[in-house]
């Protein structure tokens, strides 16, 4: 099966007053037709920048560095003309931005904003577009959509704005939908409804989805494959089961263990990962997680880790799996994996 999207060696930097912020440092990622892929990782690790790069939405002082490759449906995205780019964005591929309020136009009613996208990318008339906008608002769970369609973004609650963004992205039935933290501001019942809607969109329109999120519960319910990002690089990738039940990278493991459990009593301290991620202006030469890793060896700080392939597309960049490295029982034993009884109901 051909992949819908292929990213190879993506590097993105922001040239700032203080130096070059190397937000993305060599990311490989591919998404199949009708596949849902999740990109997870620590705040500030480069997830949104990666997502925006796919639509070429990186603005100065940011730059997609030479040598990066992005292929969509066999076409080279980085060399699309202005005109091709307009049809590509919003038509073939669309993005739900993380910052819903900033992404919506405050001077235009919500309905107009949805209609504009429909009129541009689909061959339908104004009246039809309005009806479609109302239908979409209803689908994302906005009450009284016939009235709400004429209101402005500031009259909507935080979660409602996020859902308006989702409606705009759905409007054009894209082949690829990049959803950047689409449900962060939503309560669980509406979150469940949105996830259902995403799955439906996928079934009916054969849409592929790149879900950017930190919410492992959401990931578990939607993703077929997961990419774990840390400090601008992919540290582990694999099927959803690989990542949840057989996590190999110490960062992935720590991430799974920091999830609060519904069955815990009282205000205890949560497991957090000690320390902070490295400064992206001067990223370390070795493994970026080394300074916070409890298994770190001398080599980790000096050399970027080699990738070990565990089969079935499960790969992890960590020195612990080198044949010369000491075996760490808890990382090699699938039964010691942290998922499973983590969150009991």
């Amino acid at each position, binding site marked *: 099966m051909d992949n819908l999207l292929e990213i190879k060696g993506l590097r993105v930097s*922001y040239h*700032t007053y*203080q130096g070059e912020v190397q937000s993305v440092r060599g990311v490989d990622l591919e998404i199949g037709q009708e596949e849902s892929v999740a990109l*997870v990782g*620590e*705040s*500030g690790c480069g997830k949104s920048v990666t997502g925006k790069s796919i639509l070429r939405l990186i603005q100065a002082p940011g730059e997609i560095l030479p040598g990066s490759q992005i292929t969509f449906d066999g076409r080279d995205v980085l060399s699309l003309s202005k005109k091709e780019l307009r049809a590509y964005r919003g038509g073939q591929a669309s993005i739900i931005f993380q*910052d*819903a*309020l*900033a992404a919506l136009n405050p001077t235009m009613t919500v309905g107009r904003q949805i209609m504009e996208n429909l009129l541009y990318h689909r061959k339908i008339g104004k009246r039809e577009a309005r009806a479609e906008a109302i239908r979409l608002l209803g689908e994302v*769970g906005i*009450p009284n959509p016939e*009235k709400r369609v004429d209101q402005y973004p500031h*009259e*909507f*609650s*935080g979660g*409602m704005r996020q*859902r308006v963004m989702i409606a705009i992205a759905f409007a054009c039935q894209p082949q690829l939908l990049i959803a950047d*933290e689409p449900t*962060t*501001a939503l*309560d*669980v*019942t*509406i*979150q*469940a*409804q949105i*996830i*259902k809607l995403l799955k439906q969109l996928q079934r009916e329109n054969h849409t592929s989805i790149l879900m950017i999120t*930190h*919410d*492992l*519960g*959401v*990931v*578990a*319910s939607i993703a077929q494959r997961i990419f774990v990002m840390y400090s601008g690089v992919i540290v582990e990738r694999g099927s959803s*089961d690989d990542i*949840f039940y057989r996590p190999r990278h110490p960062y992935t493991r720590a*991430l799974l263990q*920091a*999830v*609060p459990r*519904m069955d815990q*009593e*009282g*205000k*205890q301290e*949560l497991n*957090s990962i000690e320390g*902070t991620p490295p*400064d992206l*202006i001067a990223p370390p030469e070795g493994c970026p997680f080394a300074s916070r890793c409890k298994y770190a060896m001398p080599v980790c700080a000096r050399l970027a880790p080699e990738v070990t392939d565990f089969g079935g597309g499960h790969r992890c960049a960590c020195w612990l799996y080198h044949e010369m490295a000491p075996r760490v029982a808890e990382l090699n034993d699938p039964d010691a994996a942290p*998922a*499973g009884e*983590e*969150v009991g109901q």
Partner: protein
Amino acid sequence: MSEHNTPLIQVKHLKKYFPAGRKEVVKAIDDISFDIYERETVGLVGESGCGKTTTGRINLVLYDKTDGQVLYRGQDVHQMSRAERYRFKKNAQIVFQDPYSSLDPRMTVADIIGEGIDVHHLAANKRERLEKIYSYLRAVGLNESHASRFVHEFSGGQRQRIGIARALAVEPEFIMLDEPISALDVSIQAQVVNLLIRLQREKGLTYLFVAHDLAMVKHISDRIVVMYLGTVVETAASDALYGKPMHPYTQSLIAAVPIPDPEKERRRSEETIQGEATIAGATQGCRFRTRCKYATEACAREMPSLREVEPGHFVACHNLDQVGR
């Protein structure tokens, strides 16, 4: 809860109606009452659009009210003199839901955090000011090198943490935290929540914590207020609410929590996801009745009021004896 017997904040029969088109109103909040005691964390949960942000904003006098009262240490916050208002503004802070639009894009992060320190004269000199700024940055998992940057240079989660640092820098008594950690990954969530809990222990802070992540709300809150479409449907101590949710809405809310385990998610019955979020404009009776499988005629006729079902556990439902527990 006997140790804190004076409420820091009392919300009394509060209402807020927004005009929406000609002659119509959105009843964002329709007669809600609850108390927040000193040194306590109250979690405020409920469906998107149910009025959580509006409640918090009225408490901090960022919105006017339509009716009712909010008392802070017994004093009506909407009737304060100028001097009282100045003091109140230091004591009560808010972390906004929307970090980007609430932070001034023309100011550096140092000045955003430093502003409150300056206004309320919390640093003796420039050095102390800078040290304070750095220490708050570190406390939320950022560092000194971030101080001279502008907001647009930060990721979503980093902005959210700048908002938290700004609120903490004013050394308030009370903080309204509106979805303060929604954009953060679990590890940094844990770090921020641990910080909030520690500050509460050390400095006796009081929080109103709005979030949709029920596991996190349960973790941090002493008591929880559950809202549904502008009304309060249930309030109880945190463990009691999760251990024995009584209102049908609370029950469905807890059942819908996604589980970080793909196997369990595959087995999850569609049942829990039911109760479509399409809300008919119920004006009379219980607002949840259109989605409630226990609804009876009485629910359409009359709005149920909050009743104390067990000590400290209040529920607004006509059919509690029918509702499976």
